[in-house]
């Protein structure tokens, strides 16, 4: 699958033509909110008023992705979101509790359904084609990618818009915080990997990609393969999954990988597997992390894919000018040790 364009709204300056990572945006505290653009330039102001924050983020990044690719009507729109439209869900739940199931209004209920963003994009551009939404927790975005990959193989589509979207709301942040997911006390994303404590920092984002089975001669990168695996037995199992994944893609091994992007989130327990791999399978490879940029959330792998596209073609090790350009990137992420995923990219 060729990646023709991207659109990414995140806690960093990733949207539009900003030169990322000119400077990493620092966030204090355990919640990284997205830096949102001026939506009026991207979406009809009459429509914006009704949209919740995550719908605006989703629609704007999807439209920017289509615009950048010069595609007005894709052959399919597929989204992945673990939580869906939390703000609208929370509003309806709160009002239901406050008003004893009386005097409720439909807007937040209508927009609470998980397929709202894919539907709104279809509606805006008048796209009657295939439209699907995956809500598979930490594998939501990957399953959307796999759906796209199958559609391209089946000859059912040439250009597919795929996105991963999740939001933090005040309510979700409080509840997930009560589960002990986040670091307490003063914390900065710039030092996420230095604390050596329990918990991570919450993130959110919306990253869309225009995928095609045909080269456009100016593609950003090629997504060679994506796979997921579920609740692996142990680290050795994970290691063998990674090796099998590479072997199944043209008989590759770690020696063929220029760079690995890993999903460390700063939680000591969560990150054990990444440390293990850095001392074993990834031993001779350059490894970079990404969650200090976007925070932890179930579809953060969409940010990781965007980051990989961004790094492709750059020097493998910025410290030395002589290093070869990055040609092949492996992304490995897991979300709460339930869904694990691998993505393999190559330069075009």
């Amino acid at each position: 699958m060729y990646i023709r364009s991207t659109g990414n709204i995140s806690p960093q300056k990733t949207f539009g033509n900003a030169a990322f990572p000119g400077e990493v945006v620092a966030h204090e505290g355990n919640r990284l909110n997205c830096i949102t653009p001026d939506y009026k330039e991207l979406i009809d102001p009459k429509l914006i008023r009704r949209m919740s924050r995550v719908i605006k983020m989703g629609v704007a990044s999807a439209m920017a992705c289509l615009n950048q690719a010069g595609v007005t009507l894709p052959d399919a729109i597929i989204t992945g979101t673990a939580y869906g439209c939390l703000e609208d869900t929370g509003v309806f739940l709160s009002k239901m509790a406050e008003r004893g199931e009386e005097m409720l209004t439909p807007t937040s209920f209508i927009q609470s359904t998980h397929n709202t963003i894919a539907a709104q994009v279809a509606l805006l551009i008048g796209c009657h084609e295939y439209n699907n939404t995956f809500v598979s927790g930490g594998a939501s975005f990957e399953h959307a990618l796999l759906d796209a990959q199958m559609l391209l193989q089946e000859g059912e589509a040439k250009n597919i818009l795929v996105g991963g979207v999740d939001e933090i709301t005040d309510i979700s942040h409080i509840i997930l915080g009560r589960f002990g997911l986040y670091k307490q006390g003063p914390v900065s994303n710039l030092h996420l990997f230095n604390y050596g404590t329990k918990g991570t920092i919450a993130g959110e984002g919306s990253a869309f990609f225009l995928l095609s089975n045909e080269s456009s001669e100016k593609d950003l990168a090629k997504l060679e393969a994506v796979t997921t695996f579920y609740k692996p037995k142990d680290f050795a199992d994970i290691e063998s999954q990674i090796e099998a994944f590479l072997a199944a893609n043209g008989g590759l091994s770690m020696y063929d990988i220029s760079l690995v992007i890993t999903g460390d989130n700063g939680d000591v327990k969560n990150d054990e597997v990444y440390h293990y791999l850095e001392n074993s399978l990834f031993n001779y490879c350059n490894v970079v992390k990404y969650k200090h940029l976007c925070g932890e959330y179930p579809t953060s792998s969409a940010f990781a894919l965007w980051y990989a596209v961004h790094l492709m073609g750059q020097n493998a090790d910025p410290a030395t000018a002589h290093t070869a350009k990055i040609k092949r990137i492996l992304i490995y992420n897991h979300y709460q040790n339930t869904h694990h995923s691998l993505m393999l990219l190559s330069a075009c």
Partner: protein
Amino acid sequence: MSAPVYVAGVGVISGIGNNTAECLNALQNGRAGIDKLKYLDTAHKDTFPVAEVKLSNDELVALSGFKPGISRTAMLSLVAAREALNNAGIEDFSSLRSGFISANTVGGMDKTEDFFTQFNANPQAGRLRNVVNHECGKVTELVADELGIKNYISTISTACSSSANAIMYGARLIKNNILDVVIAGGTDALTRFTLNGFNTLMILDTEYCQPFDANRRGLNLGEGAGYVTLVSERVAASLKGPLYCSLGGYCNANDAYHQTASSPDGIGSFMAMEGALKMAGLNPADIGYINLHGTGTQNNDNSEGTAIKRLFEPHFPKMSSTKSFTGHTLGASAGIEAVFSALSVQQGFIYPNLRFETQIADLPFRPETAFSTQPNLKHVLSNSFGFGGNCSSLIFSKLEA
């Protein structure tokens, strides 16, 4: 890509029965599952009739084997998915590449809304165990773990067409040689969230619903779960028991008209049905029965009817909405109706559209009102359309003897 995918097992729980045999018996005898609300704790208890599964949460704990406190959505799912898996009689299941693709729209909302009554007053209140499985995907994982399925666990949520898309995705995972066997379908429990949500849209019927009737007033909500066990040709050949049918065609299209309403000409429904026919290599006249989406709302039945008129005129197949029995089970509906459609095409069953009285003036057809058996039934079309313009159609085809 043209390798066939077969239905080797079915499982269902709904307002008309706790398993396939009970549901089929109700369909044959015209016994609707719609009644006064009994189990859900809501202010609208006496206002809206619903098709609840006739089991309390405690009884569902006993039937499903889950420990107490798990979302009703997951318990319904496990009961039906386990039936579908056992029904397929696959002896070497653990050696196959297996998947569980389960759709839902509410996830663990039944527990979340209980949590919220306390949380809303005090953000430090409310038991966390009631929100730990809130996500749609968590419900699927709970059930997959019980079934021992590990290779591919995925959840789809496209409103009322969700489980049709789960069945399509499952079939495609087999066709693309990623999996050998997939339990695919969906589940949804009745919740205050959905009941109140549909109430704000003013499309709930305070009486028993009358799908495709000129005087229809809206829909009755229901709950349940329905799954089909899909297998590859190779697995099908290894089975001792009979197969139900093949999944010959499917299509997902989008109405792109409005977030909740369907277009007057039913363009999305038309494209979904037409696409499924094209994939199956069939003409409209080949379809012997349509299991309608048929919610009973003014908007859906007009839109779906108009699309059927355009596609099938002048040869209309027999058709009915089994939502007149089960209510609208949202994310579960296409799974439940896939089970009914598989039984229909296998045994020639045509289900009645209960309480039908008056034909819609603009439509030159009327649904079936009595149960019958048609010996020459070859292909059954099942429609599922949802919020967000998501329209999906499935075609189940009889296997040559």
